[in-house]
């Protein structure tokens, strides 16, 4: 009779956490930060179709780093949960907090009960009536939730970027300033694999940008792309002629 090797629970958890952390660290970063008119999402993402930033509900958006198929699965589940709640209760009863709780439960269960944890880190953001009411929840692969204030950075260089955001982010930044700060910090992160510390200048084509705009009626989520993005960054538009803003 063969005896299985004994592995202590501490070791199992540690191995899983290391595995997930390594997966997340490989990816490019995402920054979510508050500006005077709402919440701004900036990701380094060359794809126009595979989004890291998405709308969940009227006032709620989702940003993620890590493995695409895993966070996409969570995003779709979040849209379903939010739409179900809004349909069976009322649109106003869909909150970022309940969604963050659901994600935390789900990620926690997946982390403890399955062999392979999700290699994702997500932010659930809800824009409120005033900056004081904005909510930012950061969720990690093991289901831990953090209630963040002002800004969140996730992904490969999250630590370094957060450090700089702590120094440079202030309340009441306008949209263009907040966007330039985020883009500069994303560019300051070394690109994985190339090893140089040289800061890069990210162009609009390398960015995925969206806002939860406090002033918009009902659906507050809007993507910023094309000429509008170039204008905010103060550079020439290098992308094909797409509309300034589009839903979804």
């Amino acid at each position, binding site marked *: 009779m063969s005896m299985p090797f004994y592995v202590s629970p501490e070791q199992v958890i540690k191995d899983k956490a290391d595995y997930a952390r390594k997966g997340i660290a490989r990816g490019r970063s995402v920054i979510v930060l508050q500006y005077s008119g709402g919440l701004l999402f900036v990701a380094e993402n060359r794809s126009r179709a595979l*989004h890291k930033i*998405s709308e969940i509900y009227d006032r709620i958006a989702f940003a993620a780093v890590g493995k695409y198929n895993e966070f996409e699965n969570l995003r779709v589940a979040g849209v379903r*949960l939010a739409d*179900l709640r809004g349909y069976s209760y009322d649109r106003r009863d869909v909150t970022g907090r309940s969604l963050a709780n659901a994600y935390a*439960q789900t990620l926690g269960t997946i982390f403890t009960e399955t062999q392979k944890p999700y290699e994702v880190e997500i932010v659930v953001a809800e824009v409120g009536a005033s900056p004081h009411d904005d909510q930012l929840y950061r969720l990690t692969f093991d289901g831990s939730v953090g209630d963040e204030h002002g800004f969140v950075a996730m992904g490969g260089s999250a630590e370094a970027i957060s450090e700089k955001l702590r120094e440079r982010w202030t309340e009441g930044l306008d949209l263009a300033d907040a966007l330039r700060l985020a883009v500069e910090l994303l560019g300051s992160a070394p690109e994985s694999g190339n090893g140089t510390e040289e800061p890069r200048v990210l162009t609009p084509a390398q960015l995925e940008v969206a806002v939860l705009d406090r002033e918009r009626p009902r659906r507050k989520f809007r993507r910023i792309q094309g000429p509008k993005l170039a204008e905010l960054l103060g550079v020439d538009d290098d992308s094909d002629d797409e509309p300034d803003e589009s839903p979804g």
Partner: protein
Amino acid sequence: MSTVRRSSGGSSLSSAFLQAGSSSFAEFLAMHDPSLLPAGRPLPPGTSVDAVHGTTIVALTFAGGVAMAGDRRATMGNVIAQKDIEKVFPADESSCVGIAGTAGLAVEMVKLFQVELEHYEKIEGASLSVDGKANRLATLIRGNLGMAMQGLAVVPMFAGYDPETGGGRIFSYDVTGGRYEEHRHHSVGSGSMFARGALKKLWREDISPVEAISVAVESLYDAADDDAATGGPDLARGILPVIAVVDSDGYRRVPESELDPIVRAVVAARQNRPDGPVAPITG
């Protein structure tokens, strides 16, 4: 293995939420909690209930868009159940839907249809085509056939702006989910035959958006004139028809400030000619 607990919007995401595939909210509901679907509650056989009914909806196209209007009356038998019900709704940012038939079910179906369109848009990152939206509504109505056979029919009309043709399109439905594209104009509900007569005589190829609103008011006036279940404009209470316009700028409900003078002009003209404007006779 993910969790298998079933939650109805509760604290954790059950397997139905995490299942890949469908971008339809109605299909998700059917899988997760069918009792939330309008047709998810079977009635005992052989019974019929007295329910509130909504009545007349008209829609007509103009160059570059479509207008839809509904009166404000809901009836239950010979009783006016509500004087100011709203029966025309935005379906999404570039389409609208009007309802006739059993009001409770119809309003619920519109709510589901609105979520269905937004859900698809969020999951797929793109809007459905106008035909796609019209077909989704047909599927929802088809699910209601059992209820319709017991007297709880829902008869909606759908209209949207089609960026491919640069104009408005109108779709009507029957209780079996049959979908029919209508050209120029259409009307549904108990006063629809009277409204349709007015639409036929007043609609022109080169009608402007403002004229389209006026024609919609005229046709609803004619419907209210001959159908007891359709309400005319109630100027004493300030209850005007609900009129929506959909064009390349999207859905817009005509505000009261804009509608009030048009309705007053129509009502004033009827003081002289109670049967409304005269269509010219040719030949």
